Structure formats: structure tokens, C-alpha cells
């Protein structure tokens, strides 16, 4: 149903009713901005890149065939736009791969994490996510937040399904390790 409505919107935009594009912007602006702001620390820069993604989306709207979801297509554009900007800004992650995680570690981590306030927890998760590589962030975001199937994620990122599975596995561990480190520091500060 949602897909059909979006198709109607797109048809109207292509027919010249440009104002309809603002409905699509309203619907996806938070998501696109979230992706961009995880990659770029500066909020203004993230917003500029989010805007650029929407402009590119508008410019290439004729090429959207409707075979995939509009949202998936928009994620692809956003991802590519971020990648292009990242070429000029090489990021370094300080966290080393990837210690094995035991069940006990997860329980301990949950225990430490529970001591923190909700807002602090959210901040920590956001910080931890921003430490991941762009493709890892996208995979985590699309798989766990958007709940997209792996096949669709592989189309968005132009990676093989097996590759996505491996990256997903590694990203989870990386996220856990980063978050453990951060939350331990935070609880020490609060105590």
C-alpha cells in the first residue's frame, strides 16, 4: 500500500507537480539525516550532505523503475553521497578488531549499561555507531532498525549476500566492544 502511494507521488513529481517531493522529504528526512550524521560529526555538514542526497534523488527520479522500494533506492543514494564525501575525509577508527564475546560479557555489559540513564545510553549507542565504518553502520541500521532483509541490503550496498552476513557478524562484535569500552568509562565517571 505504502509502496503504491509512493509510486503515485513519484508519477506526480515526474509530471511536474514538484511540491509533492516535499512529502517524500518529510517522510525520509530523519532517516537520511541520521545516516549522514553518524558519518559526519559536524551537524551542519551532515545536513548539507542529507540535502545533497535528496537533490540527487530528485534529479535521478526518472531512473527509478519501481522494482525496489523507494526507501532502498534513497538509502543507496545517501550511502553513495556519504562515500563520495568520505573520500576526502578519511576516518580512522581507534577500536581494534575483534575480541570474541562470551555470554557472560553480554550480561556484564547489560548490567553496566542499565546503570546509565536513558539519555546517556542513547548518546553512547550513537557514539559507538559513529565509530563504525560507513558500510557497517548502514548494515546495522538497515538490518536492525529498518528490518530489511539481507538480500535487499546487499542490493543497496552493492555487496554479495555472504559479504553482508560476514560484515554484519563483525559489526555486531565491533559495536559491542566499542560500547563496552565507552559505557565502562561512563559508569566510572558517574560513580
Amino acid at each position, binding site marked *: 500500500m505504502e509502496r503504491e502511494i509512493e509510486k503515485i507521488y513519484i508519477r506526480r513529481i515526474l509530471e511536474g507537480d514538484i511540491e509533492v517531493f*516535499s512529502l517524500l522529504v518529510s517522510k525520509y528526512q530523519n532517516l537520511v*539525516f541520521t545516516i549522514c550524521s553518524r558519518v559526519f560529526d559536524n551537524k551542519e555538514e551532515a545536513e548539507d550532505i542529507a*540535502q545533497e542526497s535528496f537533490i540527487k534523488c530528485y534529479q535521478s527520479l526518472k531512473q527509478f523503475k519501481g522494482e525496489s522500494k523507494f526507501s532502498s533506492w534513497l538509502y543507496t543514494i545517501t550511502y553513495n553521497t556519504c562515500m563520495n564525501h568520505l573520500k576526502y575525509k578519511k576516518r580512522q577508527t581507534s577500536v581494534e578488531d575483534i575480541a570474541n564475546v562470551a555470554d557472560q560479557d553480554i550480561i556484564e555489559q547489560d548490567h553496566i549499561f542499565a546503570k546509565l540513564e536513558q539519555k546517556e545510553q542513547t548518546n553512547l*549507542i*550513537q557514539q559507538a555507531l559513529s565509530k563504525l565504518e560507513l558500510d557497517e553502520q548502514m548494515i546495522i541500521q538497515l538490518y536492525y*532498525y529498518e528490518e530489511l532483509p539481507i538480500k535487499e541490503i546487499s542490493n543497496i550496498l552493492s555487496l554479495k549476500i555472504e559479504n553482508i552476513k560476514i560484515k554484519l557478524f563483525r559489526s*555486531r562484535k565491533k*559495536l559491542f566492544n566499542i560500547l563496552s569500552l565507552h559505557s565502562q568509562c561512563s559508569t566510572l565517571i558517574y560513580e
Partner: protein
Amino acid sequence: MNNNIPDPLDSWTRQTIKKVTLEKPSADFNQKVMSKVLNLSTKSNKPLISNTLWLIFSATLAIIIYLGTLLKTTDLFFGANFTNKYISRWALQLLNDWNLSSTLTSIVVSIGIILIVQIIYLKQWHSKKWNTLT
């Protein structure tokens, strides 16, 4: 990585990610995007006279000039029947009578080429300048 063994971090990550809400851009984000989109759509407006229209216009003009030359020399003096009968002969005659010195022909051709190059070059230069300004 073994796909058959469930990763204990899978459910942990799911719960963790759900705690994060999406970030919001500035309140006028939509407005900013739409103003850029509107700006783009005005920029990409089609020219008033399309290439096809120019072609039709040129062809019509050529036909008018051609017929005009014929009419001037034939119809006015001999009537339309004469034109219909001898139109091709007249056209051939006109081509045969077309005698220009080689110097004049070279000058006309050179000026024509220079003009065409100038028009194409200037058009590109102006459209680039316009794009950077807007």
C-alpha cells in the same frame, strides 16, 4: 562464521539499536531542500524554441526563399502553369549560372565557419557562466 549457530550478540544488537531514536535535522530542512529543487527545475526549463522547431523553421524558410526566387522570375511574367512546367529546369539553370570567384567563395566559407564556431563556443561559455551564477 557459522550461520547455523545463533550469535548471542544478535538479540543484544537488536535491543540496543531499538533504544536509539532517529536524529532530526533542523526545522527548515524540508524548505531548504524544496527551494533547491525548485531552483533546479527552473534552471532545467526547456528553451523557448526547441531544436525541432528551429529545424522546421529553417526548412520552411529555405523553401520560401527557393520558391520566392522562382516565383519572382517566372510567375510574375509567365504565370503559374509555366512555373509548374519548367520549375526543375529553372532550378538547374540557376545552379549553372551561379558563378563566383574562388577568392570570394573562400572568404564566404571561412566567415561561415568562424561564425558557427563562435556561436557554439559562446553558447557553451554563457551557459556555463549561467549555471555557476545560479
